[in-house]
């Protein structure tokens, strides 16, 4: 479904240029859920933004659904590939009602039947029609994230790019959103790429994952290996250890991987 080959992203020019992503290659099969894990600055979100079309400064090959993508995307691409952002407080227009937010993509793509589509998608994400005319400030964080998911789904995409979709939420709400995303994937046969710094979330959501550090993919593995804690690279092992909770000895042994 998604193929990324030798992806490089460089921001800026000359001496101040930042090489954010270096030679990243991976494939995601149709219906698969793929995790991109790493710490801040690892380039995981940059990869996602390059795939989504938000960031045009890349070189290499990105192909989605068998079609090689150029730096600029057409409407048809956006209909197939949607994204959910990390911060549910920043990803909804503060002056638009849920209704307006969901109606817009329908209007852009001239899909018609907006009323029916909005009602259906709201039900799909577990919000009733009573939420339709609220403003974002009348919603909780979890409800906002559901609206953001509904906005992505209303175009009936095949690929959903998830950028830390639960890291701004409380744990109990996180569980609800993760369950929802998991259910939607199986019901709608979606393909996911999930970017997260939280290994446990990836272990719950994904079939396979790639661990990134300083712009490179350090290791690719399947979720079973992750759950067993059998990483082959030192960097991944350190990440795993840090995710287990505070441990004085572990903290002292941590080092920087260039």
């Amino acid at each position, binding site marked *: 479904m998604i193929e990324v080959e030798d992806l490089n992203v460089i921001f800026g020019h000359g001496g101040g240029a930042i090489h954010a992503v270096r030679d990243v290659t991976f494939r995601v099969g149709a219906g698969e859920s793929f995790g991109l894990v790493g710490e801040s600055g690892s380039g995981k979100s940059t990869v996602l933004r390059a795939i989504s079309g938000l960031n045009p400064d890349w070189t290499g090959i990105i192909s989605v659904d068998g079609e090689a993508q150029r730096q600029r995307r057409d409407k048809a691409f*956006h209909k197939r590939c949607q994204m959910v*952002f990390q911060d549910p407080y920043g990803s909804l227009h503060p002056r638009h009602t849920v209704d307006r937010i969901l109606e817009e993509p329908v209007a852009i793509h001239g899909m018609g039947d907006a009323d029916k589509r909005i009602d259906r998608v709201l039900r799909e994400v577990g919000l009733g029609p009573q939420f339709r005319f*609220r403003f974002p400030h009348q919603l909780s964080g979890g409800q906002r994230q559901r609206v953001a998911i509904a906005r992505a789904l209303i175009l009936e995409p095949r690929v959903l790019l998830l950028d830390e979709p639960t890291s701004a939420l409380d744990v109990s709400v996180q569980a609800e959103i993760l369950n929802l995303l998991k259910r939607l994937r199986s019901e709608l046969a979606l393909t996911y790429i999930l970017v997260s710094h939280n290994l446990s979330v990836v272990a719950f959501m994904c079939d396979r994952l790639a661990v990134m550090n300083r712009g490179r993919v350090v290791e690719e593995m399947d979720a079973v290996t992750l759950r067993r804690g059998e990483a082959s690279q030192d960097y991944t092992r350190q990440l795993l250890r840090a995710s287990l909770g505070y441990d004085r000895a572990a903290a002292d042994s941590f080092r920087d991987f260039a």
Partner: protein
Amino acid sequence: MREWLLTDTPGSRTQARLGRLYGGWLAFARNRLAMVGLGIIVLLILMALLAPLIATHSPYDQDLANRLQPPSGAHWFGTDQFGRDIYSRIVHGSRLTLYIVLLVAVTAPVVGLLIGTVSGYLGGWTDIVLMRITDIFLAFPKLILALAFVAALGPGIGNAIIAIAITSWPPYARIARAETMTIRNSDFISAVRLQGASPVRIILGHVIPLCTSSLIVRVTLDMAGIILTAAGLGFLGLGAQPPLPEWGAMISTGRQYLLEQWWVATLPGLAIFVVSLGFNLLGDGLRDVLDPKNG
């Protein structure tokens, strides 16, 4: 009714919109001074609408036998050098003031908003070209530039308004651009871009609604300045032409009598002062309500 407006679960588009307006009104009404400002502006509007009813005399009728009379029962604010009733002239002058204020308010900020948002959203060459033009306008002192325009176009109230509008859009463009730059990189703009929306759609539907509130506040606060500029042009004889009862022009003619017949210049001055104050108080109150931070 209050419940219906303030509910967190509006059932229709209209209810959502009205509820939002009502919430804003409640926040505004809590600010006493802002309400005073609003009161002054409402009085000004009423005065302009009902001018022929409120005025005790015609603003133009001269009565040379009664020139320069101090305030009295017959002439509440006294009379000027042609024996015209100052009170009636001030009442009718409110129409001119409102006319100037409204025309400037619907032109300059709109131009500024469009130029600022386009420049800020598109960036690159568009931004450079538009902002340099803005800089050129900003480089001249406002009143001097307005004077130059009026001198070129010829004196008169219409030309004064055009001159004021031409000289007052650049700051709005600057504000709108700065705000657009912060909005441009937010996730909700990214999200709508990913839906395939065109730049026109994004600027009109998503960026401009967020910029307007701070612009409205700024425009309201600038109203005092606009009135003063208009009065200044009137004072210099380049704005409203006699015998129009424009407040600035009234001060201008009254200044020769300032020491002996103080009311001729002072009372129109007071009118300008009160209205300017009203707009400023209103602007402060609006800022509390419309500030984007309360999104």
